[in-house]
């Protein structure tokens, strides 16, 4: 029998990890994002991406969308811990596979090269609601909105076509249909 040399217990079995999108409605006050993010880092939860902005200036409400990975137990804890924070109003949790929810991320992509290259680049982006925001003889800035993994794929393809800079947002989410999360 081996001797436990630590004053702490041995880690138990780790459950299956899932990707979840957590949406948090908060009072838009100083330090609120630090509270939410600090909760994640302090308790060892993951943040894959983060999007936050005020959504109602009258009620002073912000909406934070966090993509996270964790076991079902951890996801449950994340929700319950978030609900305990004083400025948090409500917390929604969606699985990434959830068909009832729309997820979108946006990316701005700058491609530098001759017109043949930029045209090819534009072609690659076509499927993802491409919008040309800026165009010169030597460059192009394209905006696309898509899922994270699609943007990942596009970025890889554009590498050889002159992608010099990419700026991406975190995911935002919205339920389909007339229902609103309460």
């Amino acid at each position, binding site marked *: 029998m081996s001797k436990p040399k630590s004053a702490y217990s041995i880690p138990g079995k780790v459950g299956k990890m899932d990707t979840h999108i957590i949406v948090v409605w908060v009072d838009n006050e100083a*330090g609120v994002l*630090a509270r939410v993010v600090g909760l994640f880092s302090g308790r060892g939860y993951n943040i894959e991406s983060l999007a936050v902005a005020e959504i109602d200036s009258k009620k002073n409400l912000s909406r934070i969308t966090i993509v996270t990975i964790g076991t079902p137990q951890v996801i*449950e804890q994340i929700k319950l811990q978030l*609900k*305990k924070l*004083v400025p948090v109003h409500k917390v929604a949790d969606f699985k990434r596979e959830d068909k009832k929810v729309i997820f979108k991320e946006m990316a701005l992509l700058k491609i530098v090269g001759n017109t043949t290259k930029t045209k090819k680049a534009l072609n690659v982006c076509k499927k993802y609601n491409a919008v040309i925001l800026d165009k010169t003889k030597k460059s192009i800035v394209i905006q696309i909105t898509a899922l994270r993994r699609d943007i990942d794929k596009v970025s890889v393809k554009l590498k050889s076509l002159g992608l010099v800079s990419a700026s991406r947002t975190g995911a935002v989410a919205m339920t389909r249909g007339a229902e609103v999360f309460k």
Partner: protein
Amino acid sequence: MSKLYSGAEIVFKCLEDQGVESIFGYPGGAVLPIYDELKNFPSVKHFLVRHEQGAGHAAEGYARSSGKPGVALVTSGPGATNIVTALTDAYMDSVPIVCISGQVPTHLIGTDAFQECDTTGITRPCTKHNWLVKDVKDLAKVIHRAFEVATTGRPGPVLVDIPKDIQFQKTSYTKYKKQKKLNGKAQNNFKQIEIDELIKLMSGASKPIFYTGGGVINSGPKASELLRELVSGTGFPITSTLQGLGAFPASDKQFLGMLGMHGTYEANNAMHDCDLMINIGARFDDRITGKLDEFSPKSKKVHIDIDPSSINKNVKVDLAIVGDVTEVMSSTLKTIKKTKPSFAKSNKQKISKWWEKIQKWRSVNSLDYINSAETIKPQYAVQRLYELTKDKDTYITTEVGQHQMWAAQHYKFDKPNRWMTSGGLGTMGYGLPAAIGVQVANPNKLVVDIAGEASVLMTMQEMSTAVQYSLPIKIFILNNEYMGMVRQWQELLHDKNYSESYTAALPDFVKLAEAYGCVGIRATTPEELDDKIIEMLNTDRPVIFDCRVDKIENCFPMIPSGKPHNEMLLGPNDQKEKKITEKGKTLV
């Protein structure tokens, strides 16, 4: 137009409206305007500590012994950082504390001004909530909200950071009306169907156990009464966590003693073998559960807690009831009376075999130790202290370490709010300042800090506070010259490599007491112990009691971490007589 008050005045108006009588604090540049107003508010008595950590722990002791929130007042920068340990301690043990800190003037925030620190940033993870007040008009609202957050739901510490210019600015003040409703974060909407399910489980169980914690004490004296009713009504055995001691009388025969790492043999084995575990206001802490995978494998588990995030955090439970334990127990009792008036009778037969088994475990006498005629055994010292103080309404605080566990094992608490110890954070140096807070809240009661010599030196300066306010606290030091618990772990698990756990140059505690202007008493042999303790009890001044105990005594029983409940190490008596299996010994 209504009268205008300065921010500093508003602080005290709020404290008055909240019924605060005592605050613990230390002045400094950024709180001078508040200190300037102190003289105008005679209903608020200020206790000057010697270090801000002491203010925090004193506020904790005050809160835990009185059921009212404790209030601390500190300055910016080092004042605020010094109280961080106490805030974290209060957060871990769910103690309601309101800390008011000064901050540099708003126009200097962010400039690395003198004694500036990001107080709200630093205390964010160790408070329930905190506020930086940037507008004097918000001040009263924020302070009242702070009290509400600290005291409702699962209690805990909060902090209000007030820049110096806000303390000078003036605004009107409207009297605070206490609202009956709990804050939005308190959950108390459990359903009758959950209570019915609980009773169904209870009537089906043949090996049940109650496992209760600090939540019962936090819920108020009513909860302890209901718990007694519930336990005697059902005939079930009950064990308690460190923080829950006193909620159920330790002298009752249904009480199995404390459970967990240094819990009794019967409590831990009963937890392991039970078929129904009813957790009331405890949180499945790792010092309680031991190895999670083998924690009480055959039982249905019920968890009653006010904090939804406590449910399923460490241990998955079969039935969760989120609510104030007072309410839950009261509905449970009502439902039992209504639907199963003969519950106790029908049940007794069913669980009689279970009690037989428990009696067998009990007969192991796991708290036993080999007494000595030459040296004072620390367990003996605590037992004697208990015997000589049990007829008084005694309040006990402790530091952290072996002495804390011996106190928990051998001092029998029959009432709630009499036992103040740092459980979650395990803060050495907690007991002395906590005793000050307890004595302030309970002026004519006996308050004893059962201490270790290493712990107590961490906050020894607060003796000066006790002397200043004539608070006759008794510091009962079990002096073994070692950091005993560290030494014990090193002996058992690190091949007796006593790395830095011996204090070579300890002060003479009797002379130290005299230097502070209080009384020093020393006991070195078992036969003089009783007389010396009586001498201590008859002294109406603060006392430092230097009880010289066996230097190498270990605290048993013990579950080594990473082991399940049924693999306990028992004390030397049992090991010698081979009452337990070889398994226990091979672990050592």
